[in-house]
């Protein structure tokens, strides 16, 4: 998942991380004092925006206290060019010991032999308590290569005032959703009832799963794309219908320009589909501009009222490099960070804005918060196909995005889908 999770912390979290980095040197000094020998440094790579600084500081403090002479060095990585960074790092003699890896990319690295096999330590990590939806991304052919860490999914964020003015209440079904958007359009023709760029492919994936299709399926020992199917056609047609309420560009995703900070704060958007950190970012940006955001949240509606729409479970796993020089220490750190207690304090730090690996560690989100809406659809959470080639499909130029733009601009879904399927198959089966 190429997005960060500063659930409801947004810019504030960034400031914390900047301020908190200064404490590294202090820690080093303490470590030197505390131990006579056996100084070891455990390097942990986390992705920008994933781990709230106060949480990771807490974990490290606890870890360093119980492991005298060990210093934990946390290096925050940016998402730009992350694949190259991780691949090359895993090939080095002194790789980072623990790394955060996106859940859609873990299988690929597991298959390449770069990640340590953790099957023997299942119990240490509390494998038995992990939720079934989150497990598969960390496993390959029956072996465990990572500890699932957190996941998050999208929900609809709406402007309460705009909804009230149009007399619209949060919908439960797709039909109600469209009905509401029509009303919003009528109430304020100048505004966008929903902001939805043409390439928000994780949203599309949800619609596709609702139709019973998938992005790719295994056919014998080969993979094939699933965009040329009838299911994909109805999914993209629904997406098209939604998108027709938006004047967002058809050939961009939600990050260009960033919908949360560059679009929504400017006003004129009654609703949009986003993640928790995006909602937080928008709230902060609106505050910075001297106004107050009044957002409500609801799960992406499903086809029927009894079940919310399927959502993509974006998230991260924590893995250990096969070449790590400190595997045992790394395992202990991993066990601590992903333990129920660790996950609970993580959940608290982000106000319940994540789905933890262990459902019983879920922190109850505040009523009316984004997290509340998000957790409601967690039961319909899915992830992208589990295969080592999947990371290649996601890499730009992403064929799914190209397919979406083509159909939105009027091309036949089947034809565009079959073209995209060819690329998907090529990348999956290489």
């Amino acid at each position, binding site marked *: 998942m190429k997005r960060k999770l500063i659930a409801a912390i947004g810019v504030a979290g960034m400031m914390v991380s900047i301020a908190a980095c200064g404490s590294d040197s202090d820690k080093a000094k303490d470590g030197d004092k505390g131990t006579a020998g056996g100084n070891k440094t455990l390097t942990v790579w986390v992705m920008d*925006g994933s781990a709230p600084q106060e949480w990771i500081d807490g974990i490290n403090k606890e870890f360093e206290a119980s492991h005298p002479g060990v210093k934990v060095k946390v290096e925050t990585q940016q998402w*730009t060019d992350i694949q190259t960074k991780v691949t090359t790092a895993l090939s080095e*003699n002194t790789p980072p010991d623990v790394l955060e890896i996106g859940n859609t990319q873990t299988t690929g690295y597991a298959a390449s032999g770069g990640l340590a096999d953790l099957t023997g330590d299942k119990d240490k990590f509390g494998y038995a308590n992990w939720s079934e939806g989150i497990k598969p991304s960390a496993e390959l052919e029956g072996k465990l290569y990572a500890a699932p860490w957190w996941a998050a999914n999208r929900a609809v964020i709406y402007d309460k005032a705009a909804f009230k003015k149009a007399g619209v209440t949060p919908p439960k079904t797709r039909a109600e959703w469209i009905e509401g958007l029509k009303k919003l359009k009528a109430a304020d023709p100048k505004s966008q009832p929903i902001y939805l760029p043409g390439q928000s492919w994780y949203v599309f994936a949800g619609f596709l799963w609702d139709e019973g299709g998938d992005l790719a399926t295994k056919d014998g020992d080969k993979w094939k794309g699933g965009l040329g199917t009838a299911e994909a056609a109805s999914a993209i047609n629904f997406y098209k219908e939604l998108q027709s309420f938006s004047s967002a560009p058809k050939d961009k995703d939600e990050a260009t320009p960033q919908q949360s900070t560059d679009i929504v704060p400017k006003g004129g958007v009654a609703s949009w589909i986003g993640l928790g950190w995006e909602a937080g970012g928008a709230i902060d940006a609106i505050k910075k*501009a001297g106004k107050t955001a009044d957002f409500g949240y609801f799960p992406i509606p499903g086809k029927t009222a009894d079940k919310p729409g399927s959502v993509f479970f974006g998230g991260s796993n924590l893995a250990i490099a096969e070449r790590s020089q400190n595997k045992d220490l790394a395992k202990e750190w991993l066990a601590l960070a992903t333990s129920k207690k660790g996950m609970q304090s993580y959940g608290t730090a982000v106000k319940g804005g994540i789905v933890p690996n262990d459902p019983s560690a879920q922190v109850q989100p505040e009523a009316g918060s984004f997290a509340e809406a998000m957790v409601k659809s967690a039961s319909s959470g899915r992830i992208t196909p589990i295969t080592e080639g999947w990371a290649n499909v996601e890499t730009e130029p992403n064929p799914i995005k190209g397919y979406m733009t083509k159909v939105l601009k009027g091309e036949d879904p089947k034809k565009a889908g079959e073209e995209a399927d060819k690329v998907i198959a090529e990348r999956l089966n290489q």
Partner: protein
Amino acid sequence: MSTTTPTPQKLRTRRPLRPAAVAKNLTALVVAAIFVFPVYWMFSSSLKPQSEILTKDPVFFFKPTFENYSTATGVDLFWSYVTNSLIVTLGAVLLALLVALAASFAIARMKFKGRKGIVLIVMMAQMAPWEVMVIAMYMIARDNDMLNSIPLLTAIYFVMVLPFTIWTLRGFIAAVPVELEEAAQIDGCTRGQAFRKVIFPLLAPGLMSTSLFGFITAWNEFAMVLVLNKDKTNQTLTFWLTQFQTAFGNDWAATMAASTLFALPVLVVFIFLQRKAVGGMTAGAVKG
């Protein structure tokens, strides 16, 4: 050309409204505006509050804020990136000047077998596809335990700017009349002394404009850093800037502030060298 001769001043005062002159200056202004506009946009964005950066109708008047600069410079390790960038860039440029001076002197002033071959090598070295050699370079560095090394990065940038430096300096050296050198030698200087006392001072402008170019090239490089120096304390300002989209969480104002700071050294060097550099490029460029 007329303006460089002493007479045109008079000419102009006599005929102040010559349409050709007006057209000329107007064109110059328009061209200057076109070239400056993106730079101006970067700079003005760096002074805007985030909410006024991307707007349907561009904002030209706003209350400037320096907050973005403190955000940019307040980033963890910012000054370390600056220092690394300066060390690597200046180190590379100085090394290149030194090595190129020797080589270009030989090429421009001496006769030896293989001279033409060297000229050819230097020319071909200009074409080196550094961007795509990144992985090969990485594998070499990795297998020799030379990752996360500032000296290695400096050395790579040095070789990156070396061919151009040799090429340009050769022109400058050739531009120095041999008679001067010979006169010095007649006066009893050794060849080395003649070089130091006569040629070198005359080369100053050439050295400056060449180093300016080298500076810009090395200053802008980042692809190597991505794979070679993954340890943050050994990364450069440019590299960090390329990661901006996430580094600032889409804080475009801070990004532009950082970019402005990033452009500053080059501008300072240029304004400092302005006359000499532009004048000095002459010889080198003509000669190539």
